[in-house]
């Protein structure tokens, strides 16, 4: 097979699907722009999976998405419409926050960790709409941003789509490399074997923090892209609902599979925007029922469902 191994095929297929997304998406009833939003959320969910494989369920990742969004927005508003500086500042500021919050919350496990991250997330949200409202625009969000530019080119429409698509493809490539390396193996082992890993010389605390920060970097990139996609920062970016949506997407798609959370993100946004046309306000109820059904009958999410179907199909064809 030479250089054409499974990994290369997976990555190529993935890149093709992402890059051709706008061409076939409109035939499924999606509106222009929703494709970009899906890609952004896919980046967010993909990074989150790198934390979920360690068994740590964060309910505060909206913080890193939102902090980066605000920092990006403020840069666009007060410094320059050029996205390079804005994105860098957004990601750096958010990563610093992630290092600190990770350090403080990862000393606890299980539900204590989840509740702590939730509390920190809400703290940022509250701060943004109260003490920092002069800077953030308070409840109205950050408005009046200029159209972002890259090398003088206006970042609108398909320009933004391809910018996001490139980030997603690179992000997927890196996430795949990480999960298939010894480092990734160790992240997966953290879930149940922390003491044993310490006995073989692994600095568990350090690596937990690494996974947390890594996932936050994806969140920060997504938050920053969201502001480039739509030059406006909503307070809800920082809200617990955003964190909750991320968790639901990941669980529906299939935690720890990389593909799953991205599919979950696509499904949820599509459902929210397309199915709500028919279901109106009932779409949340329908989503809730689907979510419960998946948790109960298909704990591995969509990816697990697909695998089961394939197995069934193979068996039938062998018989």
């Amino acid at each position, binding site marked *: 097979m030479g250089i054409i191994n499974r990994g290369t095929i997976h990555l190529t297929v993935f890149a093709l699907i992402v890059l051709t997304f706008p061409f076939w998406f409109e035939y499924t009833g999606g509106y222009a722009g929703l494709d970009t939003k899906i890609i952004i959320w896919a980046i967010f969910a993909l990074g989150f999976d790198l934390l979920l494989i360690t068994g740590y369920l964060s309910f505060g990742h909206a913080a890193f998405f939102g902090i980066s969004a605000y920092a990006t927005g403020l840069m666009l508003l007060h410094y320059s419409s050029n996205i390079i500086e804005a994105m860098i500042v957004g990601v750096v500021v958010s990563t610093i926050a992630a290092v600190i919050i990770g350090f403080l919350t990862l000393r606890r496990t299980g539900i204590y960790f989840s509740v702590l991250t939730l509390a920190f997330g809400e703290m940022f949200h509250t701060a943004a709409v109260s003490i920092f409202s002069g800077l953030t625009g308070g409840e109205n969000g950050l408005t009046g941003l200029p159209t972002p530019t890259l090398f003088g080119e206006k970042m609108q429409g398909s320009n933004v789509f391809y910018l996001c698509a490139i980030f997603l493809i690179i992000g997927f490539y890196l996430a795949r490399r990480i999960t298939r390396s*010894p*480092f990734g*193996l*160790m992240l*997966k*082992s953290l*879930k*149940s*074997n922390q*003491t*044993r*890993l*310490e*006995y*073989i*010389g*692994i*600095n*568990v605390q350090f690596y937990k923090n690494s996974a947390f920060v890594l996932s936050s970097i994806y969140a920060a990139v997504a938050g920053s892209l969201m502001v480039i996609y739509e030059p406006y920062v909503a307070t809800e970016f920082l809200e617990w609902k955003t964190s909750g949506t991320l968790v639901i997407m990941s669980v529906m798609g299939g935690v720890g599979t990389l593909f799953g959370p991205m599919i979950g993100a696509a499904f949820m946004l599509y459902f929210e925007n397309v199915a709500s046309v028919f279901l109106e306000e009932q779409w949340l109820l329908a989503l809730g029922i689907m979510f419960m059904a998946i948790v109960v009958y298909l704990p591995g999410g969509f990816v697990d469902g697909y695998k089961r179907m394939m197995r069934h199909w193979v068996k039938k064809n062998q018989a």
Partner: protein
Amino acid sequence: MSEMIQKPDSNAFFSVQDIHSYYGESYIVQGVSFEIAEREIVALLGRNGAGKTSTLRTIARAHEPFLKKGKIVLNGMPLHQLEAHQAAQIGVQLVPEDRRIIGGATVEENLILAQIAKPIGWSFEQIYEHFPRLAERRKQQATTLSGGEQQMLAVARALARDLKLLLLDEPYEGLAPIIVREIERILLEVKKLGITTIIVEQNAVAALKLADRAIILDTGLVAFDGSAQEVLDNKELREEYLAI
């Protein structure tokens, strides 16, 4: 017998100097001291609850029990100031008495994990050469290995690291006699390699076959420190502390 406790000599390859450790409020290791020369194999014996596991865990710098006082020195390095992963990095390898392997990973992945932190020891080729049973099962989920195979993997994993002090907690526990013989064969090979070892074993006779020296613990204190032969010859000692 307490007059037999030797004064700690900091020149020893490995020394434990008056260590006291606690599980919360309960005071378990109550001033243990001993030293071990390089390449020496010591059997750490004593009745149930004497504090053998607690002593090994203290040496390996586990979170529990908590070391409140005392020094532990390996090759000039102050282990008592380190955390578990740092102790492992300078060459302490504990093979604990409970399930010894990393779940959710295959045999080979267990070995890969053991070599993430530097410095490393044996290569996979060397390991598989000495443990053909593991070579056959390298792709198998480690949790599905038999008890004896898991014990082999635990020893193999220790050898995969740059090993200076091997701590074995009841390596024969719960294994059928035929498997015990196989583990014994492996440990005899480890002995030939000259790896400094502390072996804790209920089966004192089996441990003394392997060991050069014996230390007997009683309620968190050293009750005897002498040659393995002495323990085998001294009926009273055996009856009082080992019930054999």
